[in-house]
């Protein structure tokens, strides 16, 4: 196979694998920029994937599945919000709790409802997002380079993938060009400034958390309705944590998030493609090592290559009026 074809295929699967990462990392961006750390991205995504799988199977409607995913994820976000904003609890503990509760309850409910070992039944075509083929994708398939890029890389993705990539500039615009964004960034840096300006810190943070829930919900729906055909247990497989790592790696900036997620996605795509592949000089690399590669590189990158990532100053700290 010629080199360029390999590149296109690798890029294509990078885009696919990156999609949930981008959505989840943007979700984290909204809440963390507002000063609420969220380690529960993983749990929310998993819960959303499960809800999407169930509802899409029962209703046979992909959109009902997406809606259910968003609903469940927003509800979980509100639980996190209630614990960490209203009750001023530990944001880490609340996030971890959500991860555990979801990991356990999706399996139990799945087994109780469908008796397929924690899975939801496989979805038919109507229950899944079908790929969008851009116009003339087939016609230009054989045009070298440009045609290959157009039909092989740009065309043929799930609508949610296009949405995820559109959400990057959209998130930037919301955060930097709207009143809501200005206030959201302010509340993550100095909630006192927001409070004294006559804006409710609590309500603002709740709105940020809801934004997070919506995006996590779409990420979860992507997993079970687009990448897979139904929910399988633990199907997020640490993607929420990788998204969190990407968020830090990107220093909480939308544009950087895109590149960080593409990098992590590429590592994953690379590992999948070259499983059991005999490399020149090295020979066959054990599957386990290939699978661990993205995580190992994550650790190395985060430890040494990004310089100092300065988190939002008020991040992780519940707001209490000073006395």
């Amino acid at each position, binding site marked *: 196979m010629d080199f360029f074809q390999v590149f296109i295929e690798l890029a294509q699967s990078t885009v696919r694998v990156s999609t949930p990462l981008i959505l989840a990392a943007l979700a984290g961006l909204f809440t963390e920029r507002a000063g609420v750390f969220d380690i529960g991205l993983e749990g929310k995504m998993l819960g959303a994937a499960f809800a999407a799988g169930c509802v899409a199977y029962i209703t046979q409607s992909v959109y009902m599945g997406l809606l259910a995913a968003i609903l469940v994820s927003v509800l979980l976000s509100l639980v996190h919000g209630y614990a960490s904003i209203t009750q001023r609890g530990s944001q880490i503990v609340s996030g971890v709790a959500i991860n555990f509760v979801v990991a356990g309850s999706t399996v139990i409910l799945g087994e109780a409802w469908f008796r397929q070992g924690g899975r939801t039944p496989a979805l038919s075509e109507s229950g899944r997002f079908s790929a969008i083929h851009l116009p003339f994708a087939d016609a230009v398939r054989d045009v070298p380079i440009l045609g290959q890029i157009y039909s092989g890389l740009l065309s043929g993705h799930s609508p949610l993938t296009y949405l995820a990539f559109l959400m990057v500039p959209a998130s930037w615009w919301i955060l930097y060009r709207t*009143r809501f964004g*200005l206030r959201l*960034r302010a509340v993550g840096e100095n909630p*006192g400034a*927001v*409070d004294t300006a006559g*804006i409710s810190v609590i309500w603002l943070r709740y709105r940020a958390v809801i934004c997070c829930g919506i995006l996590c919900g779409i990420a979860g729906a992507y997993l079970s309705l687009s990448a897979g055909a139904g929910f399988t247990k633990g199907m997020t497989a640490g993607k929420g944590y990788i998204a969190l790592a990407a968020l830090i790696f990107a220093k909480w900036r939308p544009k950087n998030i895109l590149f960080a997620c593409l990098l992590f996605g590429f590592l994953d795509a690379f590992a999948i493609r070259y499983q059991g592949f005999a490399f020149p000089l090295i020979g066959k690399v054990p599957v386990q090592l290939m699978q661990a590669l993205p995580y190992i590189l994550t650790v190395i990158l985060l430890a040494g290559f990004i310089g100092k990532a300065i988190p939002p100053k008020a991040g992780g700290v519940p707001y209490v009026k000073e006395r």
Partner: protein
Amino acid sequence: MSELAIELKGIDKSFGLVHANRNINLKVRKGTIHGIIGENGAGKSTLMSILYGFYQADHGDIVINGQTVNIRDPNAAIAAGIGMVHQHFMLVENFTVLENIMLGAEESQILNAGITKARAELKRLEKEYALEVDPDAVIEELPVGIQQRVEILKALYRKADILILDEPTGVLTPAEADHLFRILGQLKDQGKTVLLITHKLREIMAITDEVSVMRRGEMVATRTTSETSVEELAELMVGRRVLLRVEKGEARPADVKLSVKNLTVRDSRGVTMVDDVSFDLRAGEIVGIAGVAGNGQSELLEAISGIRRAKSGTVLLNGRPVDVTGHADPAELRKCGLAHVPEDRHHVGLVLKFEESENAILGYHDDPKYRKGLTLDVDAIRAEAEEKIAAYDIRPPNPRLKTANFSGGNQQKIVLAREMERNPDVLIIGQPTRGVDVGAIEFIHRRIIEMRDQGKAVLLVSVELDEIRALSDRILVMFAGRVVGERAPDATEGELGLLMAGVEGPKEAAE
């Protein structure tokens, strides 16, 4: 008699068992600068927070411009024409000036439309009040004086007629403070009403038209500034006569106890904070280090006391070299006769969750006299703590009380008692009276002079220039990490102020 801008009637507020404000009545005339003075914990800030809608009073009425208003949140305060400049600035540090000013007053969902308007309005305000500031500068890159100006502009942008300033000069150089007072004078000329909260008597005398004194949650008196005196106000604040001038005799400097040569210290970001500093400290003298906060004084103290590693330079303590560039051990330094009262008592000087008696031996806890077999001799520790409590008049006199429950002044006395009673040769004191009340300040100052008269070498760092001038026998001024001059304690405030601002004095220029 002109009309009233603010009238408070019977304001009462409790936090749990603490009665912060007791039946407060206050009248502030329109177009005046009205001072509110009182010790820490007298309830000034609580009262202002009620006026700004941060807290709600339990009882009482607020009348603004003749109308009773219900100020249930800062929005209502802003609507009533009240603006507040907080002691700790309420600015978003990585935002620009313009973004900070717009925050909460953006006018539309999408920023762009508002930005142009805000920029124009800001220009107008700058002109009207002579408050120049670059709208696109990022806050964290601006000096504190300018940051404060942004806070004032924020209030004016929201069309405030009444401006409350809470301890506005704490972070300013004397020159910046003077500039602020000129601005306030200008605001007054434009018909604005200014409420100035402070515990500095000098400021009250310099700028206010009227002054109200608070003590222990009550409003004890209101005076016309021109008809009162510093002594009377101090007495009203504390409730007894206070000696404002520190009385001290001639210093009798003897041998060099601490010798610092070419000390250079960098902070964690690699920025040089102390730059080639050299000085000697002799037994029986107090050397004061003056400077605006953040010019390397903190790092200097930390390096000498072994908390922070220096980049280069030497320090001799009692003639013996201290490994300041390597592993200077604070415990070892203590044994060699160095005592250190850290600037930040809450984070470095005390463990607030410990009992008083535990903090009274902190750092000296491995002394055999506190030991009984394998455990601490709690009885001996408490007995000693009680002696110190008596000697330093620490209140409440309970060695088993949690340290967090003592007031700032008493916490500071706990640290001072611990360090001074070890009979050190060299005593290093950072900010001895930060957050300490007038009454306790008098006591602490007397103790420091006593230490000197006992032949101790005292190094004093303080951002309070008055304190430096009152206590020191020699004054070193630090600016941008360097010692930019040495002056006698009778140097004028203006001269020191210029040095502190980095404007070199005529002496250095001639050299």
